């Protein structure tokens, strides 16, 4: 699904966000990207939805060479992915329904497809009863769920989440992560960049740890902190 080979990213101001990162993520996987702020988690995701192009290296997303993608093809790429952000990024002058529908409308979908798929997405996240409300009338958790519904409405194979629980309280966080788990069970590849220790430790999925722009560990059933992987139990 995702393949990074020797990927480096140097920002115009000289900051080296990623340094020779190589990573493979298969279809249907659930992967956490962890590390301090500034270690390159968000940058890596940004490369995947082509917000930026890498300075070096090769990136493949579902067979597409994203690193070499022409500007005008980027919208098409993004329509095949779902991206969820820490600050939800909802359109404040549109209702929940309209926000989710928008992602469909930009692909030029017919109204009847919109009428069919939007409720489905809203049901998935449990917000069908609030479809007429505006983002500022919703709680943080509900807004994030709206954003997830929007990310999913095009049935993407890949869902990228950049600190999805960053602005949420523990209860909402649990809800959101549970939602992501269910989505993953249906076959969607899910990549979550986070610095939420509790979430990572609870779910025990593949954990890719970044530090200074490099991948330092990659564990199957990992913990947030180094040295606690491979089913080792924290004592004391």
């Amino acid at each position, binding site marked *: 699904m995702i393949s990074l080979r020797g990927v480096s990213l140097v920002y115009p101001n000289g900051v080296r966000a990623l340094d020779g990162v190589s990573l493979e993520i298969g279809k249907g996987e659930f992967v956490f990207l962890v590390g301090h702020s500034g270690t390159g988690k968000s940058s890596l995701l940004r490369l995947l*939805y082509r*917000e930026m192009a890498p300075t070096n290296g090769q990136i493949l997303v579902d067979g597409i060479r994203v690193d070499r993608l022409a500007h*005008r093809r980027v*919208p*098409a*790429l*993004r*329509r*095949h992915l779902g*991206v969820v952000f820490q600050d939800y*990024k*909802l*359109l404040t*002058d549109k209702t929940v329904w309209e926000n989710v529908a*928008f*992602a469909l409308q*930009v*692909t030029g979908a017919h109204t009847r497809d919109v009428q069919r798929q939007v409720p489905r997405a809203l049901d998935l996240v449990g917000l069908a009863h609030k479809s007429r409300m505006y983002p500022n009338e919703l709680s943080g958790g509900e807004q994030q769920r709206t954003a997830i519904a*929007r990310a999913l409405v095009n049935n993407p194979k890949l869902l990228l989440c950049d600190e999805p629980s960053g602005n949420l309280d523990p209860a909402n966080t649990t809800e959101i992560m549970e939602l992501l788990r269910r989505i993953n069970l249906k076959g969607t590849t899910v990549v979550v960049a986070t610095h939420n220790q509790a979430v990572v430790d609870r779910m025990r999925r593949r954990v890719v740890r970044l530090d200074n722009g490099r991948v330092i560990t990659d564990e199957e059933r990992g913990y947030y902190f180094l040295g606690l992987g491979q089913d080792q139990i924290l004592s004391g």
Partner: protein
Amino acid sequence: MQATAIGTVAVTIILLGSFLYIRAAFVHLGNDVFSQIEISTYVDTSATTAQEDRIRTALARDPRVLSVTFVPKRQGLAQLRARMKGQIDTSLLTENPLPDKFRVRVRDAQEVPAVAASIQKLPHVQNVEYGQQVVQRLLQLASLTRRVGIAVIVLFVLVAGIIISNTIRLTVFARRREISIMQLVGATNMYIRMPFICEGLLAGLAGAAAAVGVLALARASLVPKIELALPWLQVNAVSVDVWALVLQLFAVGAAVGVVASWIAVGRYLRT
């Protein structure tokens, strides 16, 4: 913000429209005046009838001449009396001071000076007049307005375009969050552009409509006043093709609106 853009376009198009209208009026006036030009050929008062006939024949034979009308001095005096009624008591005249005259009309107004010159050469022709001053002035004015016209039009359109462009840029900037979200969701640039282009188009059309309204009002209220002040100008007789002008103004408004907003959005999307 919208009001500013519309207002600007309106003002620009008002200026443009007035300018075009006046220019067209001048052209028409010029043409009308030209077509009315008569060369007044005053015959030497001592000329005999036979000599006058020879003048008439010579005039009639000139291919450039459209018509020749003879105005004997008696008729001339009667016309003068009628025109000067109350101002001069013509009964004081003991004899008719006026000469006989021929009123000569020419086929092509441009030929007037040349024809007048050749008439002057005919024997027993005392004086040839055709309002040289007026004609010369008008010709100069016409060519001047034509040249100035293009430059002015370009300038106006440029100014309106720049201002609309800046207004749209402000709008785009104000909505940059929405635009970036649209881009993240996978909207193409064209999709994002469209609403702004429409806004620009509407601003342009609205400005043009406002301008046309103002110009129409101005025309309706000013024309009677001009007619009173300068009756010889005959403004109403000037049949400027108003509908064509209105259409042109709307087209200009629309074009400026679309182009300006296209450029404004494009600049933002490219960064």
